């Protein structure tokens, strides 16, 4: 019998939410690391009970924890992230040069081909790799040394490397996304990088189509179609069919071109989900109605999904890391809100259930189907 396990990071701790394959009854364990901001919890694809968690507080900085038993017990692993060239600079909000400084880990991504090797996307934007299961970390310096690196500027939430997408067919290909630099692609496991932003438009910079400088919020792909990427950006939903070589706007009839997360159905590689948010200054759903929008063809035709979701007076946000899918059939879709509500749909989005209503603000959600 399969089990579904949701790994939920919140502003005040981590929670593990489990169900059997029916996905009707859910049990919540936690808070783990009560009081800590849990940016991300992710599982190893090689061992479902091997979990990694990224913690942070303003007082004590960043901590990485590892579990070998599905989150029942945890141990601290390496939290030393050293930039190779501490004197180099990027640009601050006002365009002035500012040194790179490690602040926290936004995203953990275990590799698909090597157990014990994982990437960490951090703020200030940089990519680190561990080859010893998280005990030590080394920067892949080629990313920050890209010719555009010195010009990168933070987004409103900080200059984080928030997305790492791996290609199951080619372990040397890695995509990352940075707020607000854009998408970068490596074909040599992170040693060297190219920008992958052609076709995007930056509506908030003097130059509309710079090489880098795009406020990309999240990118997602389906394992069976690694050439196809979907993006929710500050200002539009986009699609690429040439591994980021060029992007096409597929915002179509969405109620807003703004939002944070984007996910692809685990069984339908053309079925895509987003959560429209009113605007960059109004981080809540249009008209106070929380809706997930689904495109079944990965194109500009979207349908609004609201059964089981609040239809009025709802003014929460859904953050970039806070949506996930499981690989059961039909694929389960899950998302968490800044109001602490965790919603799930075992029907591919047709109907939504509230799995938890009163958690701390939710920062991240990952879904595992086990067994």
């Amino acid at each position: 019998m399969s089990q579904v396990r949701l790994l939920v990071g919140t502003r005040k701790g981590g929670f593990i939410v489990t169900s059997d394959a029916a996905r009707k009854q859910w049990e919540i364990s936690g808070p783990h690391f009560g009081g800590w901001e849990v940016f991300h919890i992710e599982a190893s694809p090689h061992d479902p009970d091997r979990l990694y968690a990224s913690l942070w507080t303003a007082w004590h900085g960043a901590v990485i924890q590892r579990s070998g038993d599905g989150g029942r017990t945890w141990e601290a692993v390496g939290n030393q992230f050293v930039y190779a060239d501490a004197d180099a600079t990027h640009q601050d909000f006002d365009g002035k040069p500012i040194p790179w400084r490690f602040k926290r880990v936004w995203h953990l991504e275990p590799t698909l081909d090597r157990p014990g090797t994982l990437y960490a996307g951090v703020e200030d934007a940089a990519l680190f790799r561990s080859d010893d299961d998280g005990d030590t970390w080394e920067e892949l310096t080629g990313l920050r040394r890209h010719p555009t690196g010195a010009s990168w500027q933070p987004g409103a939430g900080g200059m984080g490397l928030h997305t790492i997408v791996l290609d199951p067919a080619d372990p040397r290909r890695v995509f990352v996304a940075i707020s607000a630099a854009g998408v970068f692609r490596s074909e040599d496991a992170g040693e060297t990088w190219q920008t992958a932003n052609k076709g995007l438009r930056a509506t908030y910079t003097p130059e509309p189509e710079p090489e880098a400088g795009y406020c990309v919020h999240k990118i997602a792909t389906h394992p069976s179609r690694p050439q196809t990427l979907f993006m929710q950006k500050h200002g539009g939903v986009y699609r690429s069919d040439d591994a980021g070589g060029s992007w096409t706007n597929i915002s179509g009839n969405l109620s807003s071109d703004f939002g944070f997360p984007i996910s692809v159905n685990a069984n339908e590689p053309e079925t895509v989900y987003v959560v429209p948010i009113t605007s960059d200054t109004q981080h809540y759903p249009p008209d106070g109605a929380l809706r997930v929008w689904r495109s079944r063809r990965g194109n500009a035709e979207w349908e609004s999904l609201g059964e089981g979701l609040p239809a009025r007076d709802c003014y929460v946000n859904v953050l970039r890391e806070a949506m996930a899918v499981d690989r059961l059939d039909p694929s389960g879709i899950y998302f968490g809100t800044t109001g602490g509500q965790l919603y799930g749909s075992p029907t591919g989005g047709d109907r939504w259930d509230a799995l938890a209503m009163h958690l701390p603000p939710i920062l991240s959600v990952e879904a595992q189907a086990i067994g």
Partner: protein
Amino acid sequence: MEPLRIHVALPAHLRRLTGTSGSAVTVELPPGAGGAVTLGTVLDALERAYPALRGTIRDYPAAGSSTPGPLRPFVRFFALEDDLTPAGQSAPMPPEVLSGKEVLRIIGAIAGG
């Protein structure tokens, strides 16, 4: 001679990392170390006993250095109601802390939500 046993009270966030439930943890320093015990040497002993605390109270040494990094900005250190923080890691430990009668308190500054 007995080793020095120094009691250190940790803030709640750090007790989550050490997995300790009491009001203070106890770290040991070599016998006879008393005269040279500073805040920095107590933190050395604390990090040896609880490696999970590395990087959470003070920064790691800079690249190529073995000198501990600076104290983190929102963390304060008190003993006998005195704030040791301004003196930094060279602050001497009061005899009452060295004798185990008083506790070194590590406190997160009031901030955040």
